[in-house]
C-alpha cells in the first residue's frame, strides 16, 4: 500500500497553495498516490484512496504564529486536542470536523498525519512566499523518502522543523 498524500488548499491563494504544490511534486512518484483537496474536506471520506489500511498524510497551509515556512506534523490525536471545536456552522465541514466525523464513522485510516506548513499571505492571485516554497520542497522530499521507508513515522518526525 503506497503513501496517500492529500494536498489541501487553494492553488491560487498565495501560501494556501502549499498542500497542492506538495502533491504536485509527488505526482509522479510510484510510491505515492496524491489528491488535491480544493473544496470541502469531508469529500476525502468518499475518495477510494481513503481506506482503513491506508497510510494517509494531509498537507495543508496553517497559521499558528510561527515563522512562515515552519513545518509542523501532528498525529490525528494531537490535531484534535489542539484544534478548536468546529461550530459546524459552515458550508463545508473543515479538516477537524472531517476527521472527527471519520472517527465517529470508524473510518479513520490506520495511520494519519497532518503536515502543516506555516503560511503568511493568502491573497487571491498572489504567489506563494519563498519560505513556503522552500518548505514545500522539503516536505515533498521527506514524504518521498518516507514512502520508501518501512520505518513507521521516522520521516514525518523530521518534518517538525522551523526555518533557519
Amino acid at each position, binding site marked *: 500500500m503506497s503513501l496517500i498524500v492529500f494536498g489541501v488548499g487553494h492553488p491560487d491563494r498565495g501560501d494556501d497553495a502549499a498542500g497542492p504544490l506538495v502533491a504536485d511534486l509527488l505526482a509522479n512518484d510510484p510510491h505515492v498516490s496524491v489528491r488535491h483537496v*480544493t*473544496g*470541502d474536506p*469531508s*469529500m476525502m*471520506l*468518499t475518495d477510494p484512496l481513503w481506506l482503513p489500511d491506508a497510510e494517509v498524510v494531509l498537507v495543508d497551509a496553517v497559521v499558528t504564529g510561527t515563522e512562515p515556512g515552519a513545518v509542523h506534523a501532528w498525529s490525528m490525536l494531537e490535531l484534535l486536542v489542539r484544534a478548536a471545536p468546529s*461550530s*459546524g*456552522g*459552515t*458550508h*463545508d*465541514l473543515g479538516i477537524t*470536523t472531517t476527521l*472527527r*466525523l471519520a472517527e*465517529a*464513522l*470508524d473510518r479513520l485510516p490506520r495511520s494519519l498525519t497532518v503536515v502543516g506548513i506555516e503560511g503568511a499571505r493568502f491573497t487571491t492571485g498572489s504567489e506563494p512566499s519563498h519560505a513556503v516554497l522552500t518548505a514545500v520542497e522539503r516536505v515533498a522530499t521527506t514524504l518521498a523518502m518516507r514512502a520508501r521507508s518501512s520505518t513507521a513515522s521516522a520521516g514525518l518526525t523530521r518534518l517538525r522543523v522551523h526555518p533557519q
Partner: protein
Amino acid sequence: MSHTHDRRISVEALARLEGEGAMHVQVTDGTVERVELSIYEPPRYFEALLRGRTYLEPPDITARICGICPVAYQLSAINAIESLCVTPGSGRDRGLQVPDGIRQLRRLLYCGEWIESHVLHVFMLHAPDFLGYQGSIEMAADHRELVETALRMRKAGNQLLEVIGGRAIHPINVRVGGFHRAPTRGELDALVDELTWSRDAAIETVRVVAGFTFPDYDQDPTYVALRPEAGSGPVGATDYPLEGGRVVSTTGLDIPVEDWPEHFHEEHLPHSTALHGRMRGGGTYLVGPTARFNLNADRLPDELLELATEVGCSPPVTNPFRSIVVRAIETVYALDEALRLIAAYERPEVPAVPVVAVAGVGHGATEAPRGILYHRYELDADGLITDGVIVPPTSQNQPAIEEDLLGFVQSHLHLDDERLQWQCEQAIRNYDPCISCSTHFLDLTVDRR
C-alpha cells in the same frame, strides 16, 4: 410558573448555521414583545465592488459571495446581464439567446448545486435536531448509514459541479454567453450511475425525514417563488423553477422579474448589518423550498408528487419544521432532473455565443437552494457597470423569520429554557439561513421580565 413570565435564556453560539450573529427575545409579563436576529457580520460591499467593472465580470465576482450557492450567483448575474446583451448580427436589440445545449448545461449545473446544498442541510445540519443530537458527528455514531449516504450523495452533486463548472466551489467555467468549455456526452454519462444511486437514496430519505416528529406549529406567511412558463425550459427539462421564471406569490402576485423593484425593497435596521427584504407596503414574505413547493407543486413530475402525497407532504405546507421534507423532495427532483437532462444532452457546437452589451438596466433572478436570488445591473454604453443590486434569499427571509420566531416562542413559553432554546435554534434552521450571503450567526438571548 415563573419561566413563562420572567426568564432569560442565552446561547453563546448557535451551531449548524452559516455565519455568526445573535438573537434576542424579550418576554414581558408572559408576552413576547420583540424578537431580533442581530446580524453583526461586517457587510462586504460586493455591490460597490462591481461598479466600474465590465459586463463580463459579475458571474465570477458575485460567485465569491457564497461557497455553497455560487452557481445561483453566477446564473442570476448572467440572466440580468444577458438581458442587456446581443449576439452581433442577430438582428435583436437586446436579450441574448443561447443554444439549447448551453441552457441544458446551466440547468444541470444548478441541479448539482441543489443536490450538494440540500443534502448538506437535510442530513448534516437539520436532521440532528429531529434525532436529538448536538451535531452530525454525534449523530454519525448512532446513524452511520445516514451519514455515509449523505457523503455519497453530496459527492454526486459535487461531481456534477466539477464536470460542468470546473470545480465544486466557486465554479470557473461559467461565462456570459455560455461556458468556457462544454463537457462531452461521455463526461456526463460517467456521472449517471452515482446520480441514479443517489436518486434512489434520496427517495428513501424523503420517507425517513417525513417520519420525524415535528413540533406543532403552523404559520400563514406570504410565500414568493419563481414560476417558469410551462415548456419554456431546454430539451429534457421539466418545469419546476430553477434558473428563471416569473415572480409569483400566494397572495396573487404574478410579475416579470423586471418589475421586482416595483414590488420589493430592502431596508436597513440598526440590529443587523444585513438588509431586510420587504414587499412594498411593508409586508414580510418567505422564499425558499417551501415557497417553491407551495407555488409549484403542480410542476413536479407525477411520481414525485405521489411520493410527496404518500408521506403526507401536500401543498400548502404550513408547518415550517416540515421544510426538511420539502428539501428532501427537492433533492429527488434535482437528481431526477439531472438524469433527464443528461439523457437529452446535445453538446453545443460552440461552448459560448459571441456577446456585446447595450446600455440599460437588466434584471435577473433564479432559485438558489434557499430561495429567490435577484440581481439588477445598470450598464453604460461602454458595457461598464454603473450600479448593481443583489438581493439574496436570507435577507428576504430575515423579517419573516423574526415574525415566525415571535409566534413560535409565544406559543411555546410553557417549555423549559433548555427545550425552548433547542426548538428556537431548530426553528431558525428551518430556513437554512446563510448569513455569508446576507452579509453570518448566533447568540440567543431570551429576556423574560
